[in-house]
Structures are given as C-alpha cells and as structure tokens.
C-alpha cells in the first residue's frame, strides 16, 4: 500500500499548524512555506494523476482497516484530476494574494488557506460519505475564516449569511446521511453502490428521500438555482483571492454529484430514475439563464463575476444532468475551464480596483495599470462567455454535441445559446464601461495616483490565463482524457472491487484463504 494518496491531505494539515505556531509573526516565512507546500502539492498531484491515468484505482486504507469497516481514500482518474486542478489554482491564487499583499491585511491567511486546501483535497479523495461530510466541514470552517479575512462590516455581514446558509446545508447533509444509514447500514460509497441495488423495489421510499436530500445538499454547494442565493453576496464581498479559490468550491459540489450519482445512484437504478432528467436538468438550465441574466444586470464587477460563476456552474450541471459518458466528459472539460476562468476573473476584478473608488460599473477615471488589466479582462471575459478561440467555446461545443441525441435537445440548445448571447452582451457592457468609458472621464486635478498592481499579481493572473490557452490548444488530449474518466465512471466495477476486496484488518476472506 502506497502512502502517497494521503499526502495531499496530510501536507497542508501539517503546514497549517506549523505556520500558526512557528511563523506567527513572520509573514515572509509564512509565504515561503505556503508557496513551497503548494508547489510540492502540485508535484504530488501530478504523480497521483500519472499513476491513475492508466485506469488503475489507488486505494488507501486508513489504519489498515478494510472497507467498509474503515475509512478509505480512493484515487481514480476523476479524483486525481480534481486534486491536480485544486493544487494548480491554489498556487496561482496564493501568488496573487502575496503579490497584492492581501495576506497582510488580516491574520492567519496562510494557515486558513492550507486548511482550506486540506478540506478540498479530502473531499475529492475520500471514499466514504460521512468522511465527505467531515471534509466538507473542514473546508467550510476554513472558508469562514478566509471569507471574513481583513474584516469590515459589509464583509462580516455577508459572512454571517454564508455561514448560516452552509450550516443549514450541513444539517441537511446529516439528515441525508442518517436516512442512507438507516436504509442500508453502511456509508462507504462502494459498499453503498452494492447495497442500494439490493433494496427491494417495494421499499425504496427511504432511499429515494435520501437521494433527493443528498442531491439538494450538493446542489447548495454547486449553487444550482434555486439554492444559489448564498453565492452572489459571499463571493462578491469575500477578498478577491479567496473568491478565486472559492471557484473550486462550487466544483466540489459538482464533483460530489458526479461521484454519488454515477456510483451509488446510477442513472439506470430504478428507484431514483428520473431524478436527473426531471429535476436536475431544468434546475441547471434555469441556473444557466439566471447566471447570465445576472451578468447582464449586475451593477458591480464583483457581483458580475459571481453571477458568471452561477452561469458556468449551470452549464456544467446541464452537461452532468444528461448522465451520459459524453455529457460527463464535456462537463469535466468545462469544469476545468470554468474553474480557471472564474479564478482569473475574480483576480482581475481585484486588479481593476487599483485607483478606483469602488467596483461599480460606472465610468470613472482610468485605474492604475489599466492597459494590462483591460487586456486580461478581455481574454478572461472571452473565455468565460464562451467565444472562440478559447476553451469556453470548445467546452460549450462539447456540451451541445453531447445534448444532440437527447430528447431535451431543443431546450438545452435554446437555453445554452440564448444564455451565451446574454452573457456576451453583459461582459461587453461591463468591459466597455470599465475600460473604454474611463477615457472620456476627466481625471480630477487633485486625484492622487494609485500604484499599479505589482508584477507578481499580473504573473498570477497571466498564469491562469495561459493555462486556459493551454487547455484550448491541448483540447484534443484533454477531451480524450475526460472521455476516459467518464468511461471509468460508468463502469464502476473496478472501483467497487478494488475498494471492497483489498485486504486489511477485519477483512473476512482471510480465513478462507488459509485452507
């Protein structure tokens, strides 16, 4: 048994207390440790992805207890891809927060950041539903601290909303877990997948309630309409690097939906059939529309980006709700794109703050460093709105293609294309007000010139944007890989046998082997 699989959780879990205890007052040491940890994490994630890319399932039994008695971590293609995506996004966000000195505006930024990474990594890697709940809580507790980093009344108020909404979500999660345990007697995902199939067709009430509750919990995380109300305020009021990191948190919800509803409640399961088509797909279409209309209607740049996140999550969920290999593959391609694009946009909205009084979409004198910021906004907006030549366009094509053969094709095509048009208009409007109209405004005589954002900030944003370009250029290999992920997800037998038959303490077959 290799121990590499638990390192993405262990490493931040060790770095965070070290930062708090040993380097409490030395921001320089904190930064070095944080960045070094994140680079190491990318290396580990690359190694894990490489190992899992041939289709093998990595398994780590904590304390050597065999599933389903012990908690297991499972790394398949999907998990390791998400771990890698998290580590890469986190590195650039970290560089930005150092470059823009956001991490100096309050205490314990780096420690909370590491705890947040630990929670996200754990949520991606765990193979146990209750453990998923625990890691959700870990990432949420850290996110509460990050959300109100640097303080301020408006931010605290948005933080209260965010915390309360997520507490309700956690309570709902526990209700769902209780219902699942009462029905099946296990919380290990692979074991559940096996036992849910055995439930008598006449007694599926409990498990259906649990499936719907669980879907609602993950939909809250993924900000699917009508459970999205927490997102605009909290993401817009959170410090920009934190909001950029939160771009991966909505994807945790999407990941959980993909994992649970391909493994435990697969589309062909009679008890929960229709959940995706009847409930998830319309909700996803509405969130796509609401998100893009929000982009058009937003009065502040940060709210605009928050609504763009809702819209892109809607796009991901539309594709997931098809629950075909092609749909999941397209969704994964778009997930990577949307994470990078949303992260970049949140950081750019902070770049645009330099020299401006606020982020209202009104004409104000040009901000410091306007040229470079404008160019970056242009690229990121093209990516987010889904215009050629960037990856948003390719992702959207894949989704439209995946929806082509389905009975809901008319609806999906109409909403996706209509929402894209609205989104393009919204981004064009925001960009022209922010960057073009600024030229027509007289700079007041007594205006103090603000310093342009530091070079490191631009490097961080540029890094995310160049990753988007790479995601476009290497779209062929990327889609080949996401198709492989989708195929692996729809043939979960290897996952189940690896998790359930690997020997450990308390595994029953040991005695049979002896004779």
């Amino acid at each position, binding site marked *: 048994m290799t121990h590499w699989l638990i390192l993405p959780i262990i490493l931040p879990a060790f770095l965070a207390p070290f930062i708090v205890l040993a380097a409490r007052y030395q921001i320089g040491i904190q930064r070095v440790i944080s960045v070094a940890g994140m680079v190491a994490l990318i290396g580990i994630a690359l190694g894990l992805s490489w190992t899992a890319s041939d289709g093998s399932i990595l398994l780590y039994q904590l304390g050597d207890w065999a599933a389903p008695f012990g908690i297991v971590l499972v790394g398949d293609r999907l998990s390791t891809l998400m771990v890698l995506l998290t580590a890469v996004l986190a590195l650039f966000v970290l560089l930005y927060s150092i470059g823009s000195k956001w991490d100096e505006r309050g205490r314990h930024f780096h420690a909370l950041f590491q705890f947040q990474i630990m929670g996200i990594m754990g949520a991606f890697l765990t193979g146990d539903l209750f453990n998923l709940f625990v890691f959700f809580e870990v990432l949420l*507790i850290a996110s509460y601290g990050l959300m109100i980093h640097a303080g301020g*009344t408006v931010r605290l108020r948005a933080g*209260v909303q965010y915390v*309360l909404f997520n*507490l309700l979500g*956690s*309570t709902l999660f*526990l209700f769902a*877990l*209780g219902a699942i345990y009462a029905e099946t007697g296990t919380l290990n995902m692979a074991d559940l997948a096996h036992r849910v199939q055995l439930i008598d067709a006449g007694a599926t009430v409990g498990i259906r309630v649990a499936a719907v509750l669980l879907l609602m919990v993950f939909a809250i995380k993924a900000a699917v309409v009508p459970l999205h109300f927490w997102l605009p305020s909290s993401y817009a009021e959170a410090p920009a690097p934190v909001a950029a990191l939160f771009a991966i948190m909505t994807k945790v919800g999407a990941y959980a939906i993909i994992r649970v509803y391909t493994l435990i409640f697969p589309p062909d399961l009679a008890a929960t059939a229709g959940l995706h088509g009847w409930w998830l797909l319309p909700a996803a279409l509405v969130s796509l529309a609401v998100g893009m209309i929000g982009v058009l209607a937003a009065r502040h740049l940060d709210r605009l980006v928050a609504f763009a996140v809702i819209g892109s999550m809607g796009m991901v969920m539309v594709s997931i709700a098809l629950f075909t290999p092609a749909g999941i593959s397209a969704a994964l391609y778009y997930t990577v794109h949307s994470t990078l694009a949303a992260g970049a946009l949140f950081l750019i909205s902070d770049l645009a703050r330099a020299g401006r009084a606020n982020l209202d979409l009104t004409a104000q004198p040009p901000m410091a460093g306007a040229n470079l910021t404008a160019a970056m906004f242009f690229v990121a907006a093209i990516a987010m709105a889904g215009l050629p030549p960037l990856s948003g366009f390719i992702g959207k094509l894949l989704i439209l293609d995946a929806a082509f053969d389905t009975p809901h094709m008319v609806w999906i095509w109409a909403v996706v294309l209509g929402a894209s048009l609205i989104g393009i208009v919204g981004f064009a409007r925001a960009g022209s007000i922010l960057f073009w109209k600024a030229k027509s405004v007289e700079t007041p005589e007594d205006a103090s010139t603000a310093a342009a954002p530091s070079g490191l900030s631009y490097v961080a944003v540029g890094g995310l944007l160049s990753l988007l370009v790479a995601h476009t250029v290497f779209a062929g290999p990327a889609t080949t890989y996401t198709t492989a992920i989708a195929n692996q997800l729809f043939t979960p037998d290897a996952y189940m046998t690896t998790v359930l038959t690997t020997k450990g303490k308390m595994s029953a077959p040991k005695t049979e082997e002896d004779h």
Partner: protein
Amino acid sequence: MEILVASAIGILTAGGMYLVLRLRTFPVIMGISLLTYAVNIFLFASGRLTVGAPPILGDATTYTDPLPQALVLTAIVISFGMTAVVVMIALGAYLGGNDDRVDDPVVEDAP
C-alpha cells in the same frame, strides 16, 4: 418509544425552521441549534432504537449499533464549533453595522 422520538425530531425541526425564517441573527442561530439537535436525534435513531443494550461486544445477547453513536459524536462536536463561530461573526457584524438582519440590506438605486 418510536412515536416519542419521531415527534421529538419533527417538533424540533419545525421549530428550528420557523426560527431560521425569522431572518434575525439571534433567532436564526437558535433555530439552527434546534435543527442540529433534531439531526442528532435522527442520526441516533438511524441505527434502530434499542434500550439498555451495550454497543460493544460482551456477554449480552442484543447489541445496539455503535456506528450512529460515533456519527452523532462527530456531528455534535462539529455543530458546536460551528455555532460558536457563527455567534462570533454575527456579533462582529452586529456591533459593526448596528443591525442584526441576516438578509441583504436594501440598496438605493444609483441614478
């Protein structure tokens, strides 16, 4: 006993939901506390109700399921910590803004 436990969960949840919908921090936090009590009892009941039976192997003939007890313990610790965090943040927001509403403030339309 089933009816007693079931109605306790139901009443706690109903009361909690009502308080959460009041949209002021104090009732909302009280409501969330009631909801977490409800979910703790619910988790406890998910391992079937057994009276006076040990959760660990011994000489007894009937056992109660130990796993929900471990789950409840985790849930209690997490919800307790979360409540403390939200009380602190809500206090900060209230003292800073002199307002304890949870929903977004009404923003005057810019011309």
